């Protein structure tokens, strides 16, 4: 493709002369089609300004329906009208220029300075609007013209398009558009530059319309209803109105009608021209269709999300794409996507026939439209032939080198896969196609985090790449396996989740002895080079067993060395104690030597998305292929083990024995409530000492909040004690698979304090939250403390408080998403053209430097290690261990 460079773009106003020159027809008849069904000469759909009927030819260029792009026509307005889009600018110009001589009322010196400033800013390609603003402000201040000594009068701008001049005696005189035009005409060319305009391209008087361009019919095609009736475009309707009034104006004026009637018609013409441009002017009733629907006029075509700019130019609909619901399939690879056959039959890849693929393609053409087949073939002369049930056999015969074949996509083709909102680059990744039965896209659940997808009805889009270059680029840059490490925080964004983590956690916890049959069962889906030597034999049967840690080690790449504290680490160092490392009583210290897990439990920190220490290390040491296989193996291992071990979570798993409940009620909650009561008594007795920088009231609230927060934490601890580590919920929370201990606390022990804006709930009635409480009651109950657990069930007032707190969370998310969405849009618009150049600088399209070194250090966070190019400690460690 040849690229052309745009040197410059010029914006200007159309002069009446230009409008007349480009006009192919002067339109005078408000009608469209005549009784014979043909367009009327000089009418709004006349054949000089474009054809939309098949068979007719354009009378200007001779082109047929698809050939003629259409031509502009014009309406010569009998009375000039203000262009609504420039009404405000006209007002500013009128205020800034002399009513007699038309000069901008600025002294010679000011004038020169402003002109120089504008020229200088233009030269530097900077925004001149601030200077222009100053010109208008300064010039409007003057009462007398310094060039002709004319006394200036105040002008009132009456929205949308009326200007009224007020003289010294406060008499008002309306400036008709013709008066305005005369004044604007008097402004000398040299002065126009002061407004930031160029007199050659935009004389101000052109902002008053005398000739109205009529867009070609092709821009406002009529549609034929089933009844055979024609329905015209809204723009045509509006133009009909304009022509009608224009004609009436002329007739009345020529007949010498009274001034009042003329002015009314003039005003009406102005209204129609205004609404023709913009139909949602404030304070002006919208022009409506007969049905009462407001007409869609020019501004609607341009404005907003579906308008010409955002809808047609910045974004368009594309071919070779598909969209459907996604569903999980843990058995396909992380970089695959399951595509329904029905979709595969619609999406094609164009292949050029050569001697090596000729037979293969012939075979495909023989399938016709049946999968895997071909939809179109293109002969060497460029003719495109649709493959049908009647011609596929002959086409297969005729197929020869040089033809092109549009074959269905098939296993192994590379496609782009996308989920909106596309907030970061990982929202669009390249997957390899895998054709499957069913009607949904299938993805491996481990790739959900980068897309932020789940399977509650999410839909995703797929795009089939059409050129070899695009496919190569996708493979090298966008493939899922290459994006395991997020460029945002330099950690894996793809990793184990949910049950995969629970499974591995259970497998690697403690010294599990697993007999041979089960070991093989767990490993059967995984490609391992035979079993490692058994860890020992059972005492009573003397049959061999393997440990869970050993089984996990079998999927680790050989030579991997790694040490890190896991999620269950109690951070002994922070309380001054020494880390026991491999002797950790909680087995929280993970140590891997030469691909062998020596100690530690594998959990979210090791494998999870956003953390994944092991995954990160494998990716950096062994590359994306090994990592991909590892993630897949870890998932399969986990699933097979968890199926063996059995794992469930139900409502009864939140049960706490009666003693536990009593303990929570008495030792945690009652205790806290007593303290709260004591605080309130102290406050009411005036004995409460305020904390530094806080009032007594604030202090009281703060202390109560602290106390009640502690109550919930304490009851959570008690609940955890009674649930025990073997509880499924606790297991999930501790391994990081799903949920937190807080979630468990709320379900099993105590929901705790509800808050609005970080404070206890105090809104509602005067001095109280609900009529159940006395005014001024500051007790825990009256201010939204929920003693119950979700399992126990909430009391009516507790339920209400929970709804109050919950509502704030909902409002917050609603506000946050819309705000962050807009913020994102602004950031992208500002940064989209920045590029890291070969010399490491970040520059914009003009070559202006934004950063001398990308991120100050020139390091890609997804490639470096903790912000450094290499992790020296790790390199040394590796060397020692070797």
């Amino acid at each position, binding site marked *: 493709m040849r690229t052309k460079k745009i040197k410059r773009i010029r914006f200007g106003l159309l002069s009446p002369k230009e409008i007349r020159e480009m006009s192919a027809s002067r339109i005078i008849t408000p009608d469209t089609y005549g009784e014979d069904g043909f367009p009327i000469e000089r009418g709004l759909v006349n054949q000089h300004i474009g054809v939309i009927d098949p068979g007719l030819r354009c009378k200007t260029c001779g082109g047929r329906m698809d050939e003629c792009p259409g031509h502009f026509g014009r309406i010569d307005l009998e009375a000039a009208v203000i262009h609504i889009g420039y009404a405000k600018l006209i007002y500013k110009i009128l205020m800034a220029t002399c009513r007699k001589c038309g000069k901008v009322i600025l002294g010679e010196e000011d004038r020169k300075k402003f002109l120089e400033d504008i020229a200088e800013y233009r030269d530097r390609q900077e925004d001149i609007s601030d200077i222009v603003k100053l010109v208008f402000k300064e010039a409007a201040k003057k009462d007398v013209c310094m060039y002709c000594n004319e006394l200036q009068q105040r002008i009132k701008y009456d929205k949308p398009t009326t200007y009224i001049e007020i003289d010294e005696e406060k008499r008002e005189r309306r400036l008709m558009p013709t008066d305005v035009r005369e004044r604007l005409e008097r402004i000398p060319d040299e002065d126009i530059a002061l407004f930031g305009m160029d007199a050659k391209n935009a004389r101000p008087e052109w902002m008053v319309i005398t000739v109205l361009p009529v867009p070609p019919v092709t821009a406002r095609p009529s549609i034929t209803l089933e009844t055979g009736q024609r329905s015209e475009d809204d723009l045509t309707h509006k133009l009909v109105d304009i022509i009608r009034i224009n004609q009436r104006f002329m007739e009345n004026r020529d007949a010498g009608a009274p001034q009042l009637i003329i002015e009314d018609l003039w005003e009406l013409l102005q209204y129609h021209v205004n609404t023709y441009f913009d139909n949602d002017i404030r304070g002006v009733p919208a022009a409506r269709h007969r049905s009462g629907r407001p007409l869609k006029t020019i501004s609607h075509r341009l404005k907003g999300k579906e308008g010409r700019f955002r809808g047609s130019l910045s974004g368009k609909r594309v071919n070779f794409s598909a969209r459907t619901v996604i569903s999980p399939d843990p058995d396909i690879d992380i970089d695959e996507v399951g595509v329904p056959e029905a979709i595969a039959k619609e999406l094609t890849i164009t292949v050029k026939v050569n001697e090596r693929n000729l037979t293969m393609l012939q075979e495909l053409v023989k399938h016709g439209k049946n999968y895997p087949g071909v939809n179109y073939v293109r002969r060497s002369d460029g003719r495109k032939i649709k493959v049908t049930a009647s011609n596929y056999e002959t086409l297969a015969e005729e197929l020869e080198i040089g033809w092109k074949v549009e074959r269905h996509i098939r296993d192994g083709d590379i496609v782009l896969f996308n989920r909106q909102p596309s907030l970061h680059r990982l929202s669009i990744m390249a997957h390899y196609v895998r054709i499957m039965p069913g009607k949904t896209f299938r993805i491996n659940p481990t790739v959900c985090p980068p897309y932020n997808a789940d399977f509650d009805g999410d839909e995703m889009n797929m795009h089939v790449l059409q050129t070899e270059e695009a496919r190569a680029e996708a493979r090298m840059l966008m493939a899922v396996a290459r994006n395991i490490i997020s460029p945002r925080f330099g950690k894996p964004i793809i990793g184990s989740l949910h049950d995969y983590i629970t499974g591995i956690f259970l497998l690697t916890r403690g010294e599990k002895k697993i007999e041979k049959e089960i070991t093989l069962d767990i490993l059967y889906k995984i490609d391992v080079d035979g079993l490692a030597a058994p860890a020992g034999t059972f005492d009573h049967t003397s049959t061999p067993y393997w440990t869970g840690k050993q089984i996990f080690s079998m999927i680790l790449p050989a030579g991997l060395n790694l040490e890190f504290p896991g999620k269950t680490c109690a951070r002994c160092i922070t309380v001054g104690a020494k880390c026991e490392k491999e002797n950790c009583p909680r087995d929280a210290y993970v140590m891997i030597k030469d691909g062998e897990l020596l100690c530690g439990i594998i959990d979210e920190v090791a494998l999870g998305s956003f953390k994944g220490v092991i995954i990160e290390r494998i990716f950096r040491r062994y590359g994306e292929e090994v990592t991909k296989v590892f993630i897949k193996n870890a998932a399969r291992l986990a699933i097979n083990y968890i199926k063996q071990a059995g794992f469930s979570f139900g409502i009864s798993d939140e049960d706490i024995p009666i003693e536990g409940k009593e303990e929570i009620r008495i030792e945690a909650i009652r205790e806290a409530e007593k303290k709260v009561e004591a605080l309130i008594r102290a406050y009411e007795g005036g004995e409460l000492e305020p904390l530094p920088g806080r009032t007594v009231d604030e202090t009281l609230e703060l202390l109560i909040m602290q106390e009640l927060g502690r109550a919930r934490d304490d009851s959570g601890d008690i609940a955890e004690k009674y649930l025990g580590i073997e509880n499924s919920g606790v297991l999930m929370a501790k391994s990081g698979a799903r949920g937190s201990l807080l979630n468990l606390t709320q379900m099993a022990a105590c929901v705790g304090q509800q808050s609005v804006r970080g404070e206890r709930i105090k809104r509602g009635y005067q001095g109280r939250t609900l009529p159940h409480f006395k005014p001024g009651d500051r007790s825990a109950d009256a201010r939204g403390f929920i003693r119950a657990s979700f399992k126990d069930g909430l009391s009516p007032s507790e339920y209400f408080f929970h709804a109050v707190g919950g509502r704030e969370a909902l409002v917050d998310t609603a506000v946050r998403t819309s705000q962050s969405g807009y913020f994102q849009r602004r950031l992208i618009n500002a940064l989209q053209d920045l590029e890291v150049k070969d*010399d490491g600088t970040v520059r914009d399209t003009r*070559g202006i430097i934004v950063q001398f070194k990308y991120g*100050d250090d020139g390091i890609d966070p997804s490639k470096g290690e903790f*912000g450094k190019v290499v992790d020296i400690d790790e390199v040394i460690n590796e060397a020692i261990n070797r």
Partner: protein
Amino acid sequence: MMQRKDTKDTILEHVLVPEHEIAEEAAVVELLKRYKIEKEQLPKIKSTDPVIKEIKAKVGDVVRIKRSSRTAGECLFYRLVIA
């Protein structure tokens, strides 16, 4: 009026103001050569900027800014003073 005791004589001493200095002619030539750019392609700073006034840089000067960076420790930045 309340008088704050810790008011600095110059903003240059403020913790949030990185070190600014006018780059020598030779250094500027070197800089432009290194990045193969014109002066106009440098990042800009207004002559009305408080720091620029403080160090008395003129329009057309290039200032060198030593910033402490979380990623790179210290980082050098250059900006062209404009009107």
